[in-house]
């Protein structure tokens, strides 16, 4: 036991001291902060003013109406030239030259067909700007609507009064009770849980693999196994890397919580306008039970996959070989990810229930279901029991493969050889 502890401590200290750990630990909260701040900054950003010319071949006031609509708070300014239909291309050519000289951003051609068929054409240097095109599109639609209504004698303001936005509130029912959280919040939570589990299990599982391969390629393994049992080494390594993972997760968790609590302060810091809602990111309330479930499945899932990654590494001779050999293991983890949408669509459906019982998928599938709906206790217990039994079995197998594999160099073993290793 003392020797396992020595291995755990080395693994933890060396990993935490590593500059990549420090960088990723710091980068995590920065990324989270930018999730909050960047959309707000983008929204509040004083956009550069665009200058466009409206080429009006409709022979009426349509062009001037458009220009009038663009005169509002939108960052696009417009003036109008009236042309006859046959002369459009001549005018267009001279305007194209102006766009080339950057005195103009672009020009919009409107004709009779614009009002009758809804067609128009914009040519400009800013066509890739989503925001600019959306403004033009909206203004154009509005002008067409107004003109077409006027032609049948309807006042636009009457229509405007009839149009009101409809908001449907969704409320999630859990355990036969109406909760405060909305359906959207449940979805966001399930999504966040999935992201967290998928990324962390993969990230730290692969780290275990790297650590095992490193010991093999640097040939220190023989020094180690002369004083440590392979199982002590394996257990110490997996627990050590897992501890690093929990450490990093709790740093991220705490900083996310802090950032959310102090979001006003963070926004002020970057000079963004402070809005009451905390920007576009609505954080769902996370219950303690959910945290416990996520944590339990993270640990079980991590141990399951870390043991498999360690066995894969023990079979390989180099980093590159291990990366190739890990593919089947990663596929197991990707499977519930591909089926995520299905799980969220129908969290109590057959597929979701099956996936949350299959041990290699359940570490991700079950917490996602838990976040979305109420899972019957029997299913939860069955899922945990199956996972735990599989875990013991996989660790036993992995330890046997590891024990033989770490001292083997040369050809990677085939299935038959693997069976011999396990029996040995």
């Amino acid at each position, binding site marked *: 036991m003392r*020797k396992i502890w020595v291995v755990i401590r080395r693994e933890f200290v060396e990993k935490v001291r590593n500059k990549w750990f420090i960088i990723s630990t710091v980068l995590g909260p920065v990324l989270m902060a930018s999730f909050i701040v960047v959309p707000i900054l983008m929204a509040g950003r004083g956009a550069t003013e665009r200058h466009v010319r409206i080429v009006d071949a409709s022979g009426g006031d349509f062009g001037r109406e458009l220009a009038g609509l663009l005169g509002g708070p939108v960052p696009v300014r417009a003036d109008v030239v009236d042309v006859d239909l046959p002369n459009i291309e001549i005018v267009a050519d001279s305007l194209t030259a102006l766009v080339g000289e950057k005195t103009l951003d672009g020009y919009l051609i409107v004709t009779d067909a614009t009002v009758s068929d809804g067609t128009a054409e914009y040519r400009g240097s800013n066509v890739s700007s989503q925001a600019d095109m959306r403004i033009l599109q909206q203004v154009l639609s509005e002008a067409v609507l107004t003109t077409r209504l006027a032609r049948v004698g309807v006042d636009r303001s009457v229509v405007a009064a009839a149009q009101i936005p409809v908001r449907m509130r969704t409320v999630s029912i859990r355990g036969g009770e109406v909760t405060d959280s909305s359906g959207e919040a449940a979805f966001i939570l399930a999504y966040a849980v999935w992201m967290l589990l998928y990324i962390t299990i993969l990230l730290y599982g692969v780290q275990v693999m790297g650590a095992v391969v490193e*010991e093999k390629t640097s040939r220190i393994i023989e*020094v180690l196994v*002369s*004083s*440590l049992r392979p199982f002590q080494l394996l257990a110490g390594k997996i627990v050590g890397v897992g501890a690093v993972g929990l450490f990093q997760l709790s740093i991220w968790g705490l900083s996310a919580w802090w950032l959310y609590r102090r979001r006003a302060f963070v926004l002020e810091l970057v000079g963004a306008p402070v809005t009451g809602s905390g920007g576009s990111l609505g954080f769902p309330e996370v219950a303690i039970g959910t945290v416990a479930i996520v944590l339990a499945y993270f640990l079980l899932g991590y141990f399951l996959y870390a043991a498999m990654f360690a066995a894969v590494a023990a079979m390989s001779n180099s980093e590159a070989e291990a990366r190739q050999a890990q593919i089947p293991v990663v596929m197991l983890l990707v499977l519930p990810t591909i089926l995520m949408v299905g799980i969220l669509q129908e969290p109590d459906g057959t597929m979701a229930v099956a996936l949350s019982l299959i041990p290699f998928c359940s570490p991700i599938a079950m917490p996602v279901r838990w976040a979305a709906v109420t899972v019957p206790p029997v299913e939860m217990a069955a899922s945990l029991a199956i996972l735990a039994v599989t875990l013991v079995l996989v660790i036993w197998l992995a330890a046997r493969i590891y024990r033989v594999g770490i001292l083997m160099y*040369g050809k990677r073993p085939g299935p038959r050889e693997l069976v011999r290793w396990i029996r040995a």
Partner: protein
Amino acid sequence: MAPPPVWLPVCSANWLIDLSHLWAPMSLDGIIELQGITKRYAGHIAVRDLSLVVPRGAVYGLLGPNGAGKTTTIRMIMNIIVPDQGRIRLFGSQGSGRDLSHLIGYLPEERGLYRKMRVFDLLVFLAETKGVPRRSAKEQADRWIGRLGLTDWASKPVNDLSKGMQQKVQFMATILHEPELLILDEPFSGFDPVNTQRMKDVVVELAQRGATVLFSTHIMEQAEKLCDSVCIISRGRKVLDGRVSEIRREHGARNVILSVDGGAAALPSVLADRSLVTRADQYPQYAEIELAPGADPQRLLEAVMRQGLTVRRFEVGEASLHKIFVDLVGPDAATARAEEALPDA
């Protein structure tokens, strides 16, 4: 193990001997005892029915060409791999090399260190894996780092060290916990001459202080200089073992080292005289000659002089271990390489 505590009655010696028959058919003094161990791999036998005893306090050489089974034998002693047959006893009891790692300093043939770890931390960690308490591991690491002149490098990662310095670190890791038994697999291969000498000095010093040393090598000259006893193996089998002096007496015919101006090429007619020479190994600079039974070295010298050759060296002596080995197993086996002896030579 060593004799039990002081409170034993005066007759303890008899008691010990009696009891020893119950659980130790071999000498109690053997720190390592192998009995009929065999290890098979798919397609070949790496070690075949090997028995040997390494006496306490000895410097013991395990000799043989590459692929003879030395590393496999040592790995079995360390319990890194398990023999298919036979028994291994360390320190007089059935424990494994791993359980006794606090008593054993093991330098494997395949060397390696954590490249990103700092030298000091690495040494402390490796000592701790052998059961040394953290505090004394730190003290020992400090002491040895100072002694081998690496003080300035103690907090640098292993990667920053030169190869020679890394070799020193590897060696320190082997002896840091002051083991009673050193097991060194090809200890001097890959080391530069300065480090080799330094390591030999430390090994000799540890041996003088009572440590037992088992080391393997394929270089007979090294073994000849350092060892009290040797075991020579070839193709997994023991060829002979015993004290070096006795082996020489028993197996070594009288030998002459002869070197003349013009090199060995000038010698053939003399060497062909079967009344004087049983056989001769010719090297560019000299010939190692085994005298025919009853032949007088003086007559050989006279025969050489009669050819008008100028003698530069004429040395009568015992056969070298290398020659004994070649005579016993034949030149083919002596140079047999590892082709058939995969996966571990």
